[in-house]
């Protein structure tokens, strides 16, 4: 069994619109770039885990191999909603940690530009004769009649529920969180949107599901990300340059949602995140105060707020105060989503859970250019896939790095 796990190479493509590339093109671009970044080839890989949620049954991993190298290694095609990328990475980490191989590749890709509203059940016309069907014995479509299935609406309620419990939230507060992330994105050349937006522009934009306006929702776009994982033992046999740029995976955790009252009424994205964070801090032997930056799953502005609390970046119930203190701004005490987050960098579902780790690695390696968080040594990346799955990774700079 491998003692420690490292990211040897990692990359993300430009997020945005890629009309001239299919998912395999984008996945191959990310995979080949991650291998090049690691200074290795497909022949060195002992396992491949791949995610492409919108074509989850298509065998994307094998399609990718046809383009980048069919070496006969095991392929795990994974699907875990918006946590698909983190699940691919976690799968490779488990294989390396178990000692089945000493290197592996994780890839996540999605083409979502122009996908529109996710979660909406679509237009089912009312039946001509009412007959109960399904687990609720429904005689007709219930979306919009008994609550909402749309993602902006679900996550709006998640933020509002927090406000009801602890107070202090408002439409303006949520909009200011979005304003922060849009401002952060201006320094990220790979973000889908890099336009600074004023609070007024955000609040006066099209309302999707109160209190989330359009710029407060994650941006559907195309993109891919990939990572090469290596065991600590194998890393020692590689060049000093590879060892210097390698980033230590101090914690890798995946959880699902444990039963809670109301969790089947409104998805509970809190408990499994808190569980994952607790396990990750314990595994890594670090506390939230040790973190230099965090990339968390701001699929909607209303979601970012609750995750300050769930990841224990603040005291329980203290998320509003944490934000108002300026802490999560890039010049604050604990910068959150300096990439621009899902609202501005974009959210090509399966790529997200690796792209957020790329962002952390980029800073830990001191390669983040204009948006570099100076002196970053430890970072945390978090994703949530509704249904639910939560991935938390804690990453640390190599002691060999300058």
């Amino acid at each position: 069994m491998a003692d420690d796990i490292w990211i040897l190479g990692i990359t993300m493509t430009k997020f945005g619109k890629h009309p001239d590339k299919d998912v395999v093109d984008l996945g191959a671009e990310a995979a080949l770039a991650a291998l090049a970044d690691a200074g290795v080839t497909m022949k060195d890989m002992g396992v491949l885990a791949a995610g492409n949620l919108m074509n989850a049954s298509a065998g994307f991993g094998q399609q990718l191999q046809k383009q980048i190298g069919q070496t006969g290694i095991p392929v795990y095609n994974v699907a875990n909603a918006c946590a698909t990328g983190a699940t691919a990475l976690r799968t490779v980490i488990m294989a390396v940690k178990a000692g089945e191989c000493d290197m592996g590749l994780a890839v996540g890709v999605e083409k979502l530009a122009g996908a529109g509203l996710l979660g909406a059940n679509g237009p089912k016309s009312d039946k001509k004769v009412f007959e109960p069907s399904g687990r609720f014995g429904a005689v007709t479509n219930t979306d919009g009649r008994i609550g909402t299935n749309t993602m902006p609406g679900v996550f709006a309620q998640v933020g509002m529920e927090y406000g009801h419990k602890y107070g202090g939230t408002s439409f303006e507060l949520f909009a200011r969180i979005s304003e922060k992330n849009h401002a952060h994105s201006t320094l990220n050349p790979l973000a889908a949107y890099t336009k600074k937006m004023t609070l007024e522009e955000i609040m006066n934009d099209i309302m999707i599901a109160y209190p989330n306006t359009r710029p407060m929702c994650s941006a559907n776009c195309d993109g891919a990300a990939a990572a090469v994982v290596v065991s600590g033992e194998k890393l020692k046999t590689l060049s000093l340059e590879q060892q210097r740029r390698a980033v230590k995976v101090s914690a890798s955790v995946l959880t699902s949602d444990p039963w809670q009252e109301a969790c089947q009424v409104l998805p509970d994205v809190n408990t499994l995140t808190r569980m994952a964070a607790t396990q990750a801090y314990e595994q890594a032997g670090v506390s939230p105060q040790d973190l230099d930056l965090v990339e968390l799953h701001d699929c909607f502005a209303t979601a970012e707020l609750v995750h300050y609390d769930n990841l224990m970046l603040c005291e329980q119930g203290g998320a509003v105060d944490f934000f108002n203190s300026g802490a999560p701004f890039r010049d604050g005490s604990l910068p959150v989503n300096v990439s621009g987050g899902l609202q501005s960098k974009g959210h090509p579902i399966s790529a997200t859970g690796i792209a957020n780790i790329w962002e952390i690695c980029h800073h830990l390696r001191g390669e983040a250019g204009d948006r570099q968080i100076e002196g970053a040594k430890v970072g945390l990346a978090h994703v949530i896939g509704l249904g639910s799955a939560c991935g938390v990774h804690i990453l640390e700079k190599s002691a060999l790095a300058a």
Partner: protein
Amino acid sequence: MAAAVPIVDYLVLGDDPHLVAHECTGCGARFFDRRNACASCSGTEFQDVRIATTGELKAFTIVAFAAPGVPVPFVAGVIDCDGTSVRGNVINVEPDPDHVHLGMKVKLATYVVGTDDEGTEAIGFGFEPIEN
């Protein structure tokens, strides 16, 4: 009077419309859908329990953009009915933030969702503000 069916099987119609939940006899967890076993304790025995028809709005959103065919705007929310969380719309209220607020007291109300080709009405439910 036209025949009527509830929009979902956990809505009980009649003179005193109310919701029922399947309660796990082992741990007390409550569910509105058909169960194979309890998500909380894996028990397989359930009894039907009546859910309070009044409650407090503990989360909501005002959906302005939905799937085609779903009329907007509408208020979707979670209502705490005496300790049991219920998913439903807030109805008979202006769907704007000036008229809907967290913590507001609401009560169950029913309405006709539609009529099928045999003249049967589907009855839906929502929660309306309790007037002060």
